């Protein structure tokens, strides 16, 4: 009675739906990237000894100047964080841009998302198979939940991007036929 589309969605509606998923997926991907930095920063701050042990192998830590090694660790981790966060921002902004109907030919961000996903899955499996025993078990659990969410967001970006390409092609074809 209210015009609700109960049956098959129209092409335009499906395009809008995929754009909506891509828009929120892109934004979420950037925000979840901040989590990486926050989690690592908090871990290094509250558990410096554990962090140092994890970062360096046990042998390297004998007869060392702790503060110097700590500083080097922080700088390296910060550098990696900046690289990966920049990557996330690039992917996220491209996804948002495509969702808004601009830059519809962009493809690189999807390839990068696929690679990021593979990396995340590999890291996750590695952590499951070779768990590192840490003091902060609850932090580990929270991290797992958020990483899983991040993985889901990556899948959403990939699936909705591919769907959008197909739907846009369909629309162009139907417009060409109609025209």
């Amino acid at each position: 009675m209210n015009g609700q589309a109960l049956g098959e969605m129209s092409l335009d509606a499906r395009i809008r739906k995929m754009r909506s998923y891509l828009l929120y997926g892109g934004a979420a991907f950037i925000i979840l990237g901040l989590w990486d930095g926050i989690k690592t920063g908090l871990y290094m701050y509250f558990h410096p000894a554990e962090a140092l042990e994890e970062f360096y192998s046990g042998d390297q830590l004998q007869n060392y100047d702790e503060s110097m090694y700590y500083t080097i660790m922080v700088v390296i981790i910060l550098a990696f964080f900046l690289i990966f966060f920049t990557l996330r921002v690039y992917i996220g902004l491209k996804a948002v841009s495509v969702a808004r109907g601009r830059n519809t030919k962009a493809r690189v961000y999807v390839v990068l998302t696929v690679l990021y996903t593979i990396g995340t899955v590999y890291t996750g499996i590695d952590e499951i198979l070779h768990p590192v025993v840490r003091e902060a078990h609850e932090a580990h659990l929270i991290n797992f939940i958020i990483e899983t969410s991040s993985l889901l967001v990556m899948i959403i970006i990939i699936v909705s991007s591919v769907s959008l390409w197909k739907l846009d092609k369909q629309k162009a074809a139907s417009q060409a036929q109609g025209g």
Partner: protein
Amino acid sequence: MTVQEDFHYYATYCAAYIAGYSHEESLRVAYAAQFVDCCTKTFINKVKGPKVAATTQLQTELADTKLDLAGLREITRIWASFHFLPGDLYAHIPRRPKVYMDEYRLICNPNGDLLVDTLRLAKGKGIEACGLAMHVLADTWAHRYFAGTPSFVINDAGEFYEIHRTLDGDEEKKIRFRHNPVAPDDLEKGIFTNSINNYTARSIMNLGHGRAGHLPDYSFAVYRYVPAWMNYEAVIKDNPVDYRNAFCQMIYAMKYLRGEHEKFEKERYDEENIASYSDRIDSILRKRQLSASEDWKAFGEELSGSKIPDFQVDMYVDEYLNAGETEKPSTFLGRFFTAAIAQKGMVSNRIYRSGNKRAGIVMDINTLENMNRRRLLMIANKTGKAGLDGKNKKNR
């Protein structure tokens, strides 16, 4: 957030006159119709009337209302009863939770069962009830597809495009919104004011057609947009057609209220009586302007041959204030308040009986015996409460 004075006052006057009311009666009908947009708690406090009879809320009153359960119910009772009459309280969509369906079922649409109930309630209750019912009827067309309750999942909307119908075909132009409530809408540039985007489920920003700004209130506007409840599909709102239907249905409804028709049937429009004015009415409806008051006024004055005074919100205040306690219900405002309380009670009760507690647990005072009903109204007049919220157990 209302259909404007041009339609509720002047156009209703024209419809009333065409339906057979005299000039003076048509003025009273039109006044009552427009007054639904003015009868706030602030106004009622000024005249020391029953606060439960409020038919609208000022922005400041809304800002003061808490968005807890009681506040939400109060907002829903007012807006759903007078400005966003639900079209189908028993609508069904598969695989949706109850909390969503409670909001979905409040979507306003014309020709619903509640409209029939509204008119039946107004029959035999005087000019004021007639005017109030006409406001409700007109709003079912203007405000269709929005709900009279704060709801992000229903009332949010996006992708507005105005459709300009030309000889070469339809031309779509994207509508730009801004959040400046002071600046008038710019029709030339297609810039309109709407409420701020707020993702909170029950924010006031998501009440009624706030997200569409005044677009539903412009009779000339034809636009396409995507309502949140429509599953990504777009809907085309053709205001000239809807407003014409509203006008013709008002004439038919008023003839029913005058006793010329035995019953009120949905989807009936009195096109016959406007046949000779059809082009004139269409030209008023389609003229691109912020307010069509002057045009409707001119049309009305031509119809009746009499001057239509400008709407004055305080017109009947002195009559009410100067009346004794027992005479107040017989004054214009007194009868309006009675009609408003009856309408609010009826609609809120129907919503409750459909299994939806969004308007609260409300008894229908119209089913009470006359004696109890009069007692409740007298209590309402004194205390501002009528036990409509089911709390006044003493009067059950």
